[in-house]
């Protein structure tokens, strides 16, 4: 035991002081849309996307794309395929949002278009984030896993000495009874729907729900199958969405900070991820 303690002391502090830094060069994050216009008639990104996250539409003869990060499994194929650089790799780990529609990026110059496109995916959030200030100092989270385990492992990693999310007051707890937040991973297929709802039902208000990973948001690659693995949309109200497959531990921490109302610690890089308008 003494050996272990002396080893740990020798290792010093592993924790990263820089909160939610950008990904290292060459590491794949989510895609983003830049202000470089799309070339008309090109469907390269649509053709390669495994989850139909991208669609192309036209406004006055110029091509535009819509990219739903809630469907994206961050495979990076569209980034590689895009000939113009309209889609690029987003190195930011600060990708969590509190409204589903904010995950939909477009090159459209018309805001109304954005809203219309996003309307179908809009989710009402009854226990709204207004209440988040309750959890500003600390939040106890219960995790329900319904997926492939990578999201869970990254959440586990967020608690390791490198990322150390406990320093932000985040605790993972073993019972819904004393949880403030419900973190859901995986596409929630038929087998887990009842269990998830009863877990939510066992939590006291105010309570918040965090959808961790693309599966939880939309079902990802499993969407539309016979097992109804379509994500959380029709099951529970959601407060924060963390896209990615799996999201980076920093993105997970970012999402929890957003849920706690502490995103000031790691603000979103607005110009990067929000809709970028095309200068004509």
């Amino acid at each position, binding site marked *: 035991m003494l050996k272990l303690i002396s080893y740990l002391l020798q290792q010093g502090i592993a924790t990263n002081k820089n909160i939610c830094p950008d990904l290292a060069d060459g590491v794949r994050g989510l895609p983003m849309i830049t202000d470089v216009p799309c070339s008309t008639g090109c469907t390269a990104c649509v053709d390669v996307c495994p989850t139909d996250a991208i669609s192309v539409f036209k406004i006055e003869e110029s091509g535009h794309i819509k990219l739903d990060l809630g469907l994206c*499994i961050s495979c990076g194929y569209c980034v590689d395929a895009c000939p113009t650089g309209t889609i690029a790799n987003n190195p930011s780990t600060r990708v969590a949002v509190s409204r589903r529609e904010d995950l939909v990026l477009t090159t459209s110059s018309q805001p109304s278009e954005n809203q219309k496109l996003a309307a179908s995916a809009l989710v009402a959030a009854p226990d709204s984030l207004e209440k988040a200030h309750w959890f500003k100092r600390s939040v106890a989270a219960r995790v329900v896993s319904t997926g492939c385990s990578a999201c869970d492992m990254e959440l586990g990693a967020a608690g390791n000495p490198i990322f150390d999310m406990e320093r932000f007051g985040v605790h993972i707890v073993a019972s819904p009874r004393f949880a403030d937040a419900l973190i859901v991973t995986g596409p929630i297929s038929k*087998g887990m729907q009842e269990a998830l709802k009863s877990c939510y039902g066992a939590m006291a208000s105010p309570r918040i729900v965090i959808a961790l990973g693309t599966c939880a948001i939309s079902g990802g*690659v499993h969407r539309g199958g016979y097992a109804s693995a379509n994500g959380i949309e029709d099951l529970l109200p959601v407060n924060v969405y963390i896209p990615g497959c799996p999201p980076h531990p920093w993105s997970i921490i970012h999402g929890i900070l957003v849920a706690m109302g502490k995103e000031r610690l790691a603000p979103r890089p607005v110009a990067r991820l929000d809709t970028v308008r095309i200068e004509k």
Partner: protein
Amino acid sequence: MKLERLEMPLDELHDKLARTLTKNSNKRLGLFTSIDGGQLVTLLLDPKDGTAELLISPLELERNKYRSLTPHLAQFHWFERALFDFFGIVPDGHPRFKHLLLHEEYEADFFPLRKIALPENFENVLPRRYEFLEVKGEGVYELPVGPIHAGVIEPGHFRFSCFGETIVNLEIRLGWVHRGVEKRLTEVPWQKAHFVAEAAASDTACANAFAHAIAIESILGVTVSERAQYLRSIALELERLAMHIIDVGGIGTDIGLLGISSAMGRLRGKALGLADLISGSRFLRGFISPGGVRPVSERNLSEIKAGVISLRKDLAPVIQILSENQMATERMKDIGKLSRSLAHEFGMVGILARACGIEYDSRLSFKQGKFPELAPSIVTELGGDILARTRVRIGEIATTLDTIEKLVDGCPHGEEKMVLPEKLPANATGLGIVEAFRGELIHLIFTDEAGNISRYSIKDPSFQNWTAISIAIRENLIADFPLCNKSMALSYSGNDL
């Protein structure tokens, strides 16, 4: 590996299997399923000479039944239950005939992978309601755990029947994360199927993509470049490295040596960094696909080598502290014991089989990237207990580190990815076998007349191994269950698909 389909009538199948899968035989059952509900498909493997045999036994349509194989060959027990779940084929005389993966939420006559119509007189013999095995007797009580677990892990249900603190019986009910992966793999265009194959169990993403790629390439009859083969093997070993490190760390958590688990968590981070270097993804997602791999720069490869060398140095003291800790050893010794004979009978694979002396590591048997040529020698133990499993894992961390170094040194220049034909050939069969960090992983693909994938079957190593926990934990204390479970480190999603 190219596979010939061999037609074999049902009665012959029984005889053949009884003759082949004996106690001392080298052959093993790889997989047992159906293509569309009209036949039984048995995949037999011969690890000794690296060959495989695929037996197709047509079923009489009006009967929809066959004599169960389980009473004589225990390893069929889950395969037959899954076969009913997916195809509605009844194994007559199965001693524990119940649903395996589909729960009450599904309609009674719903068989998702069945393509031919059910016989007119089909009578569903199995209600959806699941009944657990009941242990009766004074003082015996039941302890239900799950599907949602206390920690951050995948869901499953454990039903313990206990007498005092001793576990008399453990029944495991899975299927909670059944997402319909096999069906989905037949619905997407085959060029995009590797993304779905990876998501079958993303902690095994690389091995799944690898097995998928081998299976598709065997259908197409192509061989990828030397460089791609080296890079694939490096990626597979990086996945093993990261997962073995965290699994050894997990033993620390459950024994109460939190220093070990936090040190291992940090070192796993380093291993994931190496995965990032080769693939741009901590979980090696999207790296391997049919035809090759994503490009990797020479600089990154040499950084991987440097990383491996420093990891070896960093891991040594932590592993030594764990191995020398008397308390840890006592917590693991003789607990959760699995006998060699039962492991063999149930066709168990991977670390838990090697920990009771079964010398099977598919890297040494079946072609996968640069293996068997550059495969490390096998690590085995005889104890069959938690300690033995941990020792095998620790031994494999060492051999894996060496293997990665060797592979990086030998990796030639060249193309990373080749162009593949647009279409798969009609009525073909493809097989991919990979030694994932949990053990033998199999992908088996059938195409139809149009060259589309008509059946995609995955056999995760955990599918055979789950039964090991039920066996090993009997007569043990309930407090030892978490540690025993951790030492087996099984996959829920890979099993449930």
